[in-house]
């Protein structure tokens, strides 16, 4: 295991300390728990607060989505492990500004059960909470069981939409509705070509041959749907895009927002080659690209590979995607679709 770190034990805590000392003008620790990070200007007065959380090792997920027009606070677990219900409770307490809290996170059992315990704790104090759980990885369950899927890079769209709706002053119920609409119209699939190593255990997330790739692998090395010899960017893109389009049922003339996400080690150059193929393929299908994002949005430490996410958009979702969003990690200019 080759990592630039001090001790594995301190990996997450020291990374968080580095983030806070670098971005002290935007972020701060919660008062009682240094695994909770909230916006400097918390609580979120006059608007619904959005809390997220999940395991470390996925930057910019989850912490990077705390910012204006995005989430208000985050709970950070150990690498690839849920944060505790207690941290989630602390975060929600600090960001809550009277309009309730939306828990917005990816579908993993540990996180879900912890968020549910946190919810119970907050309800005991009459803090209104709702949850939207993102489950976009189409490799992990079929469309009829889409809510059992794993949550992966499509979370980007959920943060963007929920964050914009909250910033516009919408109610908790309304934010939940529109974010769930996005969640249902969201699909992601990835390809992995090399694993990462978990600092705490020194364990590789998977093994893979020198000339192999795995289509559909999850962001913790969860098994995908097919192991194959490494294919060209064109073939990989076609395999993934075709499955995404049929999953969320996009036809010619319809419009999608696209996100090409790097798993960690994959160079931006390669992501843009995939973007190029995606662009050409969608054009050939006469499907409109509303927006195209390319970069690292949900990583797995130094895993090699990428994923493509698509969200079928209508006017309501587009209006929310167009709003500005600003965190130390994620920036989207007001009015832009890019």
């Amino acid at each position, binding site marked *: 295991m080759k990592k630039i770190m001090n001790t594995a034990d301190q990996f997450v805590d020291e990374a968080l300390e580095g983030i806070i000392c670098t971005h002290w003008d935007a972020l701060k620790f919660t008062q009682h728990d240094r695994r909770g990070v909230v916006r400097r200007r918390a609580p979120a007065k006059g608007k619904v607060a959005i809390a997220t959380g999940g395991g470390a090792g996925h930057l910019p997920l989850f912490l990077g989505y705390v910012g204006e027009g995005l989430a208000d606070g985050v709970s950070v677990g150990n690498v690839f*492990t849920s944060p*505790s219900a207690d941290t989630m409770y602390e975060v929600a307490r600090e960001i809550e500004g009277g309009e309730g809290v939306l828990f917005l996170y990816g579908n*993993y059992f540990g996180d879900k*059960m912890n968020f549910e*315990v946190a919810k119970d704790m907050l309800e005991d104090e009459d803090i209104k909470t709702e949850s939207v759980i993102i489950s976009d990885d189409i490799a992990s*369950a079929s469309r009829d069981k889409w809510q059992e899927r794993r949550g992966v890079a499509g979370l980007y769209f959920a943060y963007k939409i929920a964050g914009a709706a909250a910033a516009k002053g919408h109610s908790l119920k309304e934010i939940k509705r529109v974010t769930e609409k996005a969640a249902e119209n969201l699909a992601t699939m990835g390809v992995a070509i090399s694993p990462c190593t978990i600092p705490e255990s020194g*364990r590789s997330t998977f093994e893979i041959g020198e000339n192999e790739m795995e289509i559909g692998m999850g962001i*913790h090395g*969860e098994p995908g749907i097919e192991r194959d010899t490494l294919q060209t960017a064109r073939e990989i893109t076609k395999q993934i895009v075709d499955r995404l389009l049929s999953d969320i049922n996009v036809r010619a003339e319809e419009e999608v927002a696209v996100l090409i996400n790097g798993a960690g080690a994959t160079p931006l150059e390669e992501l843009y080659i995939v973007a190029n193929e995606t662009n050409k393929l969608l054009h050939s299908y006469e499907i409109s690209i509303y927006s195209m994002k390319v970069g690292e949005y949900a990583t797995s430490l130094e895993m090699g590979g990428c994923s493509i996410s698509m969200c079928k958009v209508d006017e309501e979702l587009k209006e929310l995607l167009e709003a500005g969003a600003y965190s130390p990690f994620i920036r989207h200019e007001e009015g832009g679709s890019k």
Partner: protein
Amino acid sequence: MTLSLLVNEYYEFIKKIKDELNQLDAAQGDGDLGNTMVGGAKALKVEAENTKNIPDWLVEGGKAFRKAAPSTMGILIASAMIKAGKQQKENNRLEWSDIQKTMIEEIMKRGKASRGDKTLLDAFIPAVNAFEEASDQGVSIALKEAASTAKAEAEKTKNLNAKTGRSSWMGDRAKGNMDGGAWLCYKTYQFLADWVKYEEKKGEKS
């Protein structure tokens, strides 16, 4: 105090089976079950030193477990302990059978799984039944029965497809692997049975 000694022993015991648990979890999950249990058991040990009775320990230990090791197994065990502890406090009596049954209920409520879904419940539920049936023969025999039942049932999880948890994403590929949580359940009953037997022997001698 006995509780403190017992939990300390349990912590040492868990450290010994850590790798085994990690390996079972690695085959169909993310390979951290052993780590979760070491972190959790350590928290339980610390709380056992700081609390005066078992119901308090269940509640405080559960909370500490939850903070120390908040994975699927961690939050389930923690929630179950807290629930059982609170109930015992309300009832103002210590009833081993109730504790186990409440834990199962809480795990089912939180995890929304039932028997046959390839989880620790597949060992836990039949083990508690066996414990109940044998409980008139004394706690030592009851624990022994629970342990041997849990072992047999844990091994049967090899034939199951996982319906919940990480391993459910493996589909058919989870078949053939034993569930780590179920095995942990057996190991824990075995540990308790051995401990009680040892304590009884010590009692006979003195």
